[in-house]
């Protein structure tokens, strides 16, 4: 009797367990898979002067055959034809790679210092890293315009200190350098936090053991601390690299006319040229490109688990 009861309990438990597991999948289905399929479908359509500005718009099940016959890969072929798009993709990947590297360079020492700080002040330090989020992202990027523009705060500072003559001005605004500054500034918390969580977990006696075995501190960092923080490095790098590749606001506000990024191209296609199918194709390709780093990330996460 008791056994039967238990089995029934388990069945019920099983159902509620499935429900719990289903929630994130349903979420992903509704807000990722479905929109992606729509985008993918649009990318196979043709431009039209209509509302929405593409054909065919899905109308009724009877037209499925009709509808399918009108879809083709012509937008994708066009993307490979025009070197502008390839260049935009490559330039995005280049900017994202360099930015991620810069972020690591800046973020690692910060995370390390936080992890080595006394336990009592660590929560405060984490707070300070997240603090910029309390101001709108857009406002913070605008603030950089104020700093970097030729008659901005940086010029003023350098002139006041005397490092720059009164006639000179910093020429950073509307260059790739400004984009890098903006990206590193904006994404720093996303790099620091995973690094910090990896470094904070590290057992300090490991470094003592390395020391004890004849390994000086700097070498111990490269032999022990850094390899053990690799999951954090990879997590931080991926979390930054992926959105930076598709970044639009920062290059648009801080970058120059020659700062080529796929996010900007996408925007131009959608809103400037009103070519939704082509813009969708650009977005789909971007996603496919980013699947590679996402897979690396996934793989690493599995290894950690």
């Amino acid at each position, binding site marked *: 009797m008791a056994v039967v009861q238990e089995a029934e309990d388990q069945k019920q438990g099983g159902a509620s367990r499935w429900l719990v597991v289903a929630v994130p999948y349903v979420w992903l289905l509704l807000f990722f898979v479905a929109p992606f399929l729509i985008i993918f479908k649009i990318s196979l359509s043709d431009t039209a002067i209509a509302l929405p500005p593409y054909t065919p718009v899905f109308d009724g099940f009877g037209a499925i055959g009709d509808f399918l016959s009108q879809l083709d890969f012509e937008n994708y072929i066009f993307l490979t034809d025009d070197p502008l798009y390839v260049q935009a993709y490559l330039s995005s990947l280049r900017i994202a790679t360099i930015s991620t590297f810069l972020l690591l360079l800046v973020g690692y020492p910060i995370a390390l210092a936080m992890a080595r700080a006394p336990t009592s002040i660590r929560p405060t330090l984490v707070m300070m890293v997240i603090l910029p989020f309390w101001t709108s992202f857009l406002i913070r990027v605008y603030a950089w315009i104020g700093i970097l523009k030729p008659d901005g705060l940086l010029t003023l500072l350098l002139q006041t200190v005397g490092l720059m003559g009164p006639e000179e001005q910093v020429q950073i605004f509307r260059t790739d350098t400004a984009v890098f500054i903006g990206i590193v500034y904006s994404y720093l918390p996303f790099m620091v936090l995973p690094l910090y969580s990896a470094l904070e977990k590290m*057992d300090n*006696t*490991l470094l*003592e*053991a*390395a*020391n*004890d*075995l*004849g*390994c*000086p501190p700097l*070498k111990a960092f490269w*032999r*022990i601390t850094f*390899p*053990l923080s690799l999951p954090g490095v990879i997590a931080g790098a991926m979390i930054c690299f992926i959105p930076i590749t598709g970044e639009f606001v920062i290059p648009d506000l801080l970058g120059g006319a020659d700062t080529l990024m796929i996010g900007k191209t996408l925007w131009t296609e959608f809103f400037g040229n009103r070519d939704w199918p082509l813009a969708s194709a650009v977005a789909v390709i971007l996603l496919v490109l980013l699947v590679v780093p996402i897979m690396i990330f996934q793989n690493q996460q599995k290894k950690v688990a």
Partner: protein
Amino acid sequence: MAKSLGPVKRKFSPWTDPSAIPFIRFENITKRFGNFTAVDSLTLDIYEREFFSLLGPSGCGKTTLMRMLAGFEEPSEGRILLQGKDIQGVPPYRRPTNMMFQSYALFPHMTVEKNIAFGLEQDKLPKGEIAARVDEMLKLVKLETFAKRKPNQLSGGQRQRVALARSLAKRPQVLLLDEPLGALDKKLREETQFELMDIQTKLGLTFLIVTHDQEEAMTVSDRIAVMDKGVIVQVATPAEIYEAPNSRYVADFIGDINILEGSVTTTESALGSPGTVRIDCDGIKVAVDQECQAVTGDKVAFAVRPEKVRISPDQPPDTSVNALHGEVWDIGYLGDFSVFIVKLDDGRVMRAAQANVSRLVDRPITFGDMVWLTWPLDAGLVLTR
């Protein structure tokens, strides 16, 4: 794991030789952390090839003392001499000491082999030599088949042995062991204790072990330093510590003991000449043959180990001294031993231990029995501190 007891230990007692030069000398070492004094002007000599234990409760400063020798802490005052040389300011990675950490501190991203090779690689030894030494170490700790595993694929006992192999690989002049066997179960711990002694004798190294486990210290050590609140209370061989503790603290810390407070009534003993010391402990009259400085009227403690107390239902012929009458209050059956807790007629409690030499399940003495506790003159101790 085959039990090997190794070669029979020869008589080893450099500390009794006044001309012997200590290998390690702690000289008036004081270590303060803020307001807290962890080690208080402590002086201690340790000799070459000695297996030395620092024994004490947690927080007594034993680990701090060891960490100062390893170089992880600098003494606030005093100096540490290693082979006569002051090692003040020498960083840990240049000291000829290696440490086996309590947590083992194995590098989780390296295989067993790599862990053991780590120290040797720092010395830039040729590859072949490193490989040979790693093999030798793996053989020593019987882990040859586990060379390619990562630490998280090993059991606690195996990890502990990797830690030992890693700390021994560089043949340190002094091996420091910080509570090395704490995480092991009793059986494995005992086995490993014998292995440690075996390895120490085989390699002829000086071992300094920190432990709070008195049995462990007794088993492995040539000498033990019992510490309390940053000072050393007694330094002696395990047998001396057990049989002749110099204070109530040591007597109480090591093993089980009955302590009665009292004062000296008559004494025939003086320093250098043993004689009978008679003590009155609030009506209980005891006598001890011992070399003792206490004079008549001195407040002292009388102590006797439970296994030296005889328990019997029969009244002894002489009940005037070293004979107590009481009721069996509780019995702790430990298998090899039974501990009788006897409530004396005046309400005080004494313990007597008896080896269970026969296989009787029903013991002749049981709860509520009236018994006599007796012990010979040389069984007890007078503690003046």
